[in-house]
């Protein structure tokens, strides 16, 4: 219960911060009016948008509406922000979920294999893959994927978001980028778990090798992984701007990026708030999963 309250508080704090900082970053009226507008026109726009009222009043009004799903109208598209987001969000979600799948599919086996034989060739190879993933800018990796799989081999569409197939390459690019820290965490957790006393007890019971690794060790090693997964998922939602741009996916990150350059404040605020809420919900969810996995947390 305490956790949930705290999570709500974080959401409110984020919204407040987002609102005030964005409003402090420039004069929206000037941006909307364009470069050739007269002072009177700007003033009129300001009046029209209600920008001349105190910040606190505007924040309260905005938050009250936002809670009901009304984020106001986009200054650029002249249509409700909620509609814009409802159209873009599924794309970003699809991308993030698939990328998460790619990340776990890569990092869990690699991490476990590396931990079973530390400093072996497998371990080194896994480390190499990890280092590459971290060193390579993900837009560049994305471009390589397009060149190889779309242009040369022709087995995947290069851009767009029409079918699930369109998401395969972006998901690989985004997922691979998040793999290294995850793999390291699993490797380290497994090495620690495998050298622990309870693994020795399990072996002494005559449990077979694989069962010891996957039942007894992985269950313990996976506990910190859950928290990192939640954070990574949040990053994928908010940080997919580059990948969405490269692959031309009409997603949330792409929308945010465009709106920032257009000073389309209502959209930026809404995206920020939604991503933040997702983030908080994911972390909360991770806490619950961890409590379920680890009985020691449960009783605290």
């Amino acid at each position, binding site marked *: 219960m305490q956790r949930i309250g705290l999570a709500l508080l974080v959401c409110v704090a984020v919204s407040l911060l987002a609102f005030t900082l964005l409003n402090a970053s420039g004069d929206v009226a000037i941006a909307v009016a364009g470069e050739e507008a007269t002072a009177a026109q700007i003033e009129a726009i300001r009046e029209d948008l209600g920008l001349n009222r105190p910040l606190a009043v505007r924040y309260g009004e905005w938050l009250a509406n936002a809670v009901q799903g009304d984020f106001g109208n986009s200054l650029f598209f002249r249509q409700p922000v909620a509609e814009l987001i409802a159209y873009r969000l599924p794309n970003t979600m699809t991308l993030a979920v698939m990328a998460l799948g790619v990340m776990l599919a890569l990092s869990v086996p690699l991490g476990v294999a590396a931990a079973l034989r530390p400093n072996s060739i497998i371990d080194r190879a896994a480390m190499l893959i990890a280092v590459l993933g971290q060193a390579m800018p993900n837009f560049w990796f994305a471009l390589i994927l397009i060149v190889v799989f779309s242009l040369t081999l022709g087995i995947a569409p290069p851009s767009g978001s029409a079918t699930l197939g369109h998401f395969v390459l972006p998901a690989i690019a985004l997922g691979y980028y998040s793999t290294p820290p995850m793999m390291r965490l699993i490797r380290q957790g497994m090495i620690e778990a495998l050298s622990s*006393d309870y693994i020795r*007890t399990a072996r*002494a*019971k005559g*449990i*077979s*090798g694989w069962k010891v690794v996957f039942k007894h060790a992985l269950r313990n090693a996976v506990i910190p992984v859950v928290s990192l997964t939640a954070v990574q998922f949040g990053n994928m939602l908010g940080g997919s701007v580059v990948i969405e741009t490269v692959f031309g996916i009409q997603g949330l990150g792409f929308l945010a990026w465009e709106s920032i350059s257009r000073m389309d404040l209502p959209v930026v605020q809404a995206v920020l708030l939604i991503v933040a809420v997702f983030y908080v919900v994911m972390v909360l969810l991770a806490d619950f999963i961890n409590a379920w*996995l680890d009985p*020691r947390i449960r009783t605290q």
Partner: protein
Amino acid sequence: MTQPVLSVRGLTVDLPKNGDRPHAVSGISFDIHPNEIVCVVGESGSGKSVTAFTAMGLLPKALKPSGGQMLFEGQDLLKMSRREHTRLRGKRMAMVFQEPMTALNPCFTVGDQIEEIFKAHTRLARSERKARTMALLEEVRLPDPPRVYSSFPHQLSGGQRQRIVIAIALAMDPTLLIADEPTTALDVTTQAQILSMFKTLKSSHSAGILFVTHDFDVVAEIADRVVVMQKGLVVEQGTADEVLNDPQHPYTRQLIAAVPRKREDAPEPLSDEVALRVQGLKKTYHVAGTLTRKARTVHALHPTDFTVRKGETLGIVGESGSGKTTLVRCLIRLLDPDDGAIWIGSRNFAQGSRASLRAARKDIQIVFQDPYGSLNPRRSIGEQLIGAPMNFGVSRSVAWGRAKRLMKIVRLEEEALYRYPSQFSGGQRQRICIARALMVEPKILIADEAVSALDVSVQKEVLLLLADIKRNMGLTILFITHDLRVAAQICDNLIVMSKGRIVERGTVAEVFGNPQQPYTRQLLSAMPGRKWEAPDVA
């Protein structure tokens, strides 16, 4: 004579290259018969655990058996494939470990972890597995088996967890049971219960038991035969009576001579000057409630009074949870007591802010239990020693001179000051810790389980050193321990604590000879090896 369960013939296990010796154990031989407890005794590094792990096939990868045989029911364990060995483990041979707190998987219930062994080795139906598990929990005398069955390890005490590990070991009725220091981490009353359980098991399961220990009193309590190991060699073996009462090898004699015993010499008369007066010292902890649990108040220390006279060694004895650690922490103000006074001279150490206590801290110093964790590995011994006096305004050269003198007193060489902690053994480190505590010339030294982590022969050296220093420097010592035997050896007076209260106090002779309280009597009767009078072999 029956066929031995395990017959070790010339076993050699190699250590990794560049070690301090080529073999962990080298050419050792001994037998274990059914219905027999064989104790393998030795200090750390003797190879006793390596022997136990080789039999179980659980050696770390770096260690490789390179010679000899280990015949188990006629088969050589060293020639067996990994898969064959896995099949024997848990079924025909089982093991109980030293550390019950970490031996069980924190993520699974006790029931799951016991039933797993039936899943691995039998085709029992689910209900039968559960019934067998319940029967095992009954057999190891755990209270309320249904509750324990669905508990997680962290909800149980160390003694209870060790019973579960024993239950797992007994599940398949193995012919060989290996126990590696199974009671070392337990309180003395729990130890007594576990030891008596092993004695019962020997007859009820007719297993051969290999019992690894460093403690001769435990040997005296349960062993039928004894194997003494030193640096990877068996130096002596025989029946318990032979080895304990008529030891032949000098090393065995040395070990037996180091067994802590009550002092025979009359205590020196104490001065009337009071060094430390504790009045009504009290500490409670408040545990915040949650949705499902009410908030609790834990009385870690009920109002406590005692005085320590100048030059006295006062032993504070108690089991885990007795409040002795809380008492120590309050005494040096690592914890703030709720109430009460700690008089050192004319100063009340229980009052005043932590900052204002700084100057007074040099009067009361402490040596902790773990000699490995209490020295900074990245700074030289000398730097660590002179830090404290320099904090109190002593010049570097004076501090350095004092450090050199103290090295001599704790019987280390001056060069030790230029070296780093990793270059010393546990016993040497503990002597360095004592030197560190003495650097600020305290009036009172607290030794908090200061010898508990040390081998017996090292333990004896450190105890003698403490007694010497006390006599020569006029120090007052508070000696905190769970081990009555050690307390009896070094202390003038004893305080016995239980559940946050002092339950008994008196001279060593009074407490041992004529205990007044049932708790003290219970503690004394739980001491292992009471029927054995160590022969005078020194």
